[in-house]
Structure formats: structure tokens, C-alpha cells
């Protein structure tokens, strides 16, 4: 491990501008670590080393000639492998996706990162079509949690999460339909932002569920997520769902000041569920206390019908996913991964009436949540009820337990997962801050305020002690 492995984007930017570090040095270090650990951790589907070094060299040349494209110039990033990126195939970790899908195309979000001078290291592992589970029989590496490789890194943005946590990338792009940014952020111990629906264009991103999908940043700190979001966010006409709401200077709003901000703690379901690990509960409440000590106001509240909302999110997600995949499921069942095809096929067991009712419930639930958020600036919940699950746990076990994530996809709200300590097992604990529509600045402000006085997000998993497996 070298000093540059685990820099935040903010720290690396300062070193790049002071001349203490070049992007080429930083990129080379991360590429070497990726080569060393990828067979073990399964973070990458494709590492675009040559192109990344060219981009890094160009960033350094720009710095030398006085050209500064902003805080992402020269910063090495990961791109989830359902997002189109020039120079690398998009596989969606599947044998089914047309190999030409997205070829020679940058998704708008990737184009923006490239324009900002970022170095794109490659395509990071996803659960197949952002829906399945790792299947060792498929021609893709199985992603592993860098804190304990017997544990799941969660999904579906597994690879970006692993890369950020293990020091293989300083940040990256994930997608979140029912928790796929926040789940990996929780399991791997870093920060992940599920943006407001429509905040970031999702064109040239393989869809999972079109009315729920979002593209968001993943990084070690809230500050880094703010820097990434400033480049990623904004209207693009190629996405009919994309909002024209102006992009804020998210990082500039991070002043550590939280006095008077009203935090709602929705106790029923989110804090009193029988499956909630007491260590997770204690970690989350300790962080809330930190924010209260800094002047925030914490009040117990309730989000009605939270369990039903989880179900509604599943009905919509599975139905919309099924609609996208139906023809390929019929024609190419065996080409899908073992657990992906059964997961998606479950969507065929819902009726048109079920889906229509889920849409009707969604409108009602949005009104209920809006009412709660009239009294509170944000809500805070545990991100997940437990720490990372066993990697070998029963496939599709996630259907059985509670989820604190999909409710916010259902109504399009922004939510950031923030490290909140560690359990006795050494695995990360995470809390989630939910805000009003397009209030990313508020939730990032609270997350950043917490990270100014805690160091959970800076902890480094013990990957350097891993036995290295070569391909």
C-alpha cells in the first residue's frame, strides 16, 4: 500500500494541484492494485489500463499548461458495467446483452465525467442486469467484500463499491433502483448517494425498472460524492425523465453547519424491526447523537405504510424488469444466470392489476412522505438492518427480510448511505439520510458534518493481507 491508495478525491485533487502527485502516478498505483486484487475481489469486468494511462497523462499535461477542468481532473474512477462507456464493452455481467450494445458510446453521465477530466479505469462488476446474484458458473468474477471475503459486497453496484473501499478507484458510478448504490456502500463501508429521480440522466444505461432507476455517485466521503454529483447531474434531452432543475454547487454548501436542521427518526419499522441488529441500531443512534451535539434537532416520527411501500417497490421493479426481459427470457432462458432468470421471471407472476395498484399506492405514499417531510428537513434510518450477509447465503434471500431502501426509490427521493461505525465482527455499519426532492445539498451537508467529526468513512479494509489469486 502506498500513500496514494486511499486518498479521497478531495485530497488527491489538492495533491495533483500542488505537484506532490501526478495523475499518472496515482492511476498507475490503482491499476497495479487492481491487477493484484481483482481475481480475489472481483471488482472489475474490464480494466481499460492503456486508455486510463492516456487520460491520466493528458490530465497531467493540462495541469502543467494551466488548464484545470475542475475537481475531477486526473481522478481515477470506476463505471458500473451497465453504463455505456467508449472503449470498453458493456456486458451487464450477462451473456444475453447484445455485445454491440452501447459500443463506441459514452452515456451522458460518462461523457460529463470525461469532460471534467476524470480518468476512467474500466467497467466495474454488477449483478447481472443489476438484478441477479453472483453465479460462479457464469464467465464473470464473483465480487467479494474487501472487509471479509466470505461476506457479500451487496449489489448491484458491487464492483464500484469494492473498488472504492479497497483502494482500487477513488470513486465511481453506480445505479440504484431498490438500493443498489446504498447497499454496497453499507456493506463495503463507504458513502453512496441515491439521487433524486431525474437528477442524473440515465440514457445509455441498461434499464432495470424505468420508473425507479437512478444513476448516482459512490465514493469514500460525502464531500467526494458532492464533487462527483456536480459533474454528473443536470438535464439531458436524451432521457425523457431527466429534470431541468438547476445543479447546485453541492460541495460549496458543505460548511459543517447543521444547527437547527430537523432530523426525523421514523421509529416504527425502521428502528423497531425484529430483524434490526442491535449493533447497527447503536451505531446509527450514536451518529445521530453526534449531529445533535452539533446543533441538529432529532425528533421521533413515523413513515406510515413503510412495509407496504417496500412491497410496492418490489412489484414495480420486478414487473418493469420483466417487461424489459420477457422476450429474451422466452428465447434465451439458459443464457441468463441461474439466479437472474428466476428473479426476473417472478415478475411474470404479478398481474396488470397488481402493477396498477402499486402505481396508485405510490401516489398515496408520496403524499404521506411529503407530509412527514413538511415537519422534518431529513429522515435518518439504518441503511440496512444488518452488516454484510454471508456470500454463500441462500440466493434471493433478500426477498425474505425487511428493506429500508426501496421506499425512497418508490417516491423518487434522494438518500445517502453514510458509514456509521463497525460491528464487533469488524464489518461496517451504515446510516441513511433521506431528503426532499432535489435536496441533495441538505443530505450531503449532514453527511459531511458527520464525517468532519468521525472517521468511519476513512477506515481501510485489510485487503493487503489477502492471499492474492492470479488468473
Amino acid at each position: 500500500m502506498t500513500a496514494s491508495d486511499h486518498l479521497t478525491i478531495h485530497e488527491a485533487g489538492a495533491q495533483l494541484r500542488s505537484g506532490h502527485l501526478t495523475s499518472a502516478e496515482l492511476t498507475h498505483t490503482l491499476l497495479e492494485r487492481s491487477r493484484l486484487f481483482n481475481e480475489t475481489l472481483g471488482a472489475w469486468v474490464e480494466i481499460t489500463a492503456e486508455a486510463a494511462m492516456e487520460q491520466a497523462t493528458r490530465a497531467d499535461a493540462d495541469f502543467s499548461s494551466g488548464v484545470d477542468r475542475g475537481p475531477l481532473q486526473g481522478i481515477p474512477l470506476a463505471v458500473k458495467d451497465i453504463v455505456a462507456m467508449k472503449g470498453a464493452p458493456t456486458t451487464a455481467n450477462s451473456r444475453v446483452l447484445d455485445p454491440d450494445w452501447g459500443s463506441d458510446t459514452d452515456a451522458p453521465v460518462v461523457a460529463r465525467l470525461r469532460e471534467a477530466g476524470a480518468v476512467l479505469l474500466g467497467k466495474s462488476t454488477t449483478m447481472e442486469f443489476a438484478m441477479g446474484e453472483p453465479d460462479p458458473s457464469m464467465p464473470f468474477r464473483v465480487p467479494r467484500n474487501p472487509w471479509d471475503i466470505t461476506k457479500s459486497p451487496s449489489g448491484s453496484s458491487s464492483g464500484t463499491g469494492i473498488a472504492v473501499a479497497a483502494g482500487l478507484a477513488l470513486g465511481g458510478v453506480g445505479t440504484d433502483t431498490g438500493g443498489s448504490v446504498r447497499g454496497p456502500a453499507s456493506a463495503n463501508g463507504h458513502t453512496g448517494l441515491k439521487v433524486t429521480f431525474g437528477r442524473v440522466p440515465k440514457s445509455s444505461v441498461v434499464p432495470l425498472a424505468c420508473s425507479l432507476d437512478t444513476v448516482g455517485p459512490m465514493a469514500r466521503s460525502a464531500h467526494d460524492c458532492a464533487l462527483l454529483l456536480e459533474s454528473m447531474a443536470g438535464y439531458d434531452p436524451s432521457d425523457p425523465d431527466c429534470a431541468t432543475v438547476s445543479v447546485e454547487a453541492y460541495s460549496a454548501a458543505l460548511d459543517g453547519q447543521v444547527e437547527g436542521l430537523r432530523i426525523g427518526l421514523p421509529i416504527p419499522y425502521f428502528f423497531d424491526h425484529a430483524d434490526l441488529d442491535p449493533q447497527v441500531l447503536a451505531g446509527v443512534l450514536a451518529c445521530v447523537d453526534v449531529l445533535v451535539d452539533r446543533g441538529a434537532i432529532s425528533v421521533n416520527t413515523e413513515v406510515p405504510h413503510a412495509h407496504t411501500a417496500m412491497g410496492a417497490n418490489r412489484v414495480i421493479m420486478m414487473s418493469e424488469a420483466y417487461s424489459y426481459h420477457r422476450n429474451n427470457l422466452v428465447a434465451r432462458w439458459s443464457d441468463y444466470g441461474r439466479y437472474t432468470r428466476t428473479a426476473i421471471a417472478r415478475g411474470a407472476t404479478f398481474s396488470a392489476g397488481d402493477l396498477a395498484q402499486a402505481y396508485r399506492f405510490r401516489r398515496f405514499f408520496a403524499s404521506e412522505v411529503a407530509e412527514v417531510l413538511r415537519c422534518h428537513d431529513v429522515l435518518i434510518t439504518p441503511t440496512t438492518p444488518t452488516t454484510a450477509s454471508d456470500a454463500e447465503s441462500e440466493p434471493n434471500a433478500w426477498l425474505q427480510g425487511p428493506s429500508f431502501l426501496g421506499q425512497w426509490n418508490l417516491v423518487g427521493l434522494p438518500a445517502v448511505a453514510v458509514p456509521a461505525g463497525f460491528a464487533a465482527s469488524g464489518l461496517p455499519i451504515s446510516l441513511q439520510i433521506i431528503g426532499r426532492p432535489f435536496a441533495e445539498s441538505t443530505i450531503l451537508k449532514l453527511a459531511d458534518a458527520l464525517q468532519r467529526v468521525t472517521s468511519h468513512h476513512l477506515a481501510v479494509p485489510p485487503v493487503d493481507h489477502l492471499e492474492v489469486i492470479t488468473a
Partner: protein
Amino acid sequence: MIEVVSASGADDPAVPERADDRIASIVQALLSSAQLEIPDDERDEIVRDYSLLRSQADALFAAPSDVQPAMRFNPFAPFLDRPPADASADSAQTS
């Protein structure tokens, strides 16, 4: 409905097996209507979770819901005095 089958056989030890068979038949019919020819062991996985997912879908009909569904859902309308023209949702993405 699955609940009817289960309730009617509450005192009959033979009924749970019949209920499982009934669920399997329902799932097989749904998958067949979708033209999905699935190996038995994989169909059994879907059967296993069917009651759980069915109960979650049924719960939506027991919960309050908006009585005036719109053609285009705007999740943010309740948060604003008037619906924004710039934050629409619910149209399919093509790729």
C-alpha cells in the same frame, strides 16, 4: 386466492400439501401463459417465494391508494404547491 385455500384447510393435515400443489399449479399457469418453459427445480424456487410476493402485492389492495391515478406519475407533486413542469417521471427508457 391462496388465503382461501389455506384457511379452509386449517384443521385438515392433508390440506397443506394440497395448498402447495395449488400454488405450484397457479405459478405454472402464470409462467406458461408468459411462454416461459422453466426447469422444474427453478420453477420450484419461484413457487417457494410466490406466497410471500403475492402477500406483498395483496397488501397494496388493503392499503390506501390514490383514487385518481394519472397517466404520468410525478412523485414530487405532493412536495410542491403545484406540479413542476421539469421533473416528470414514468416514461420508459429506451436503450
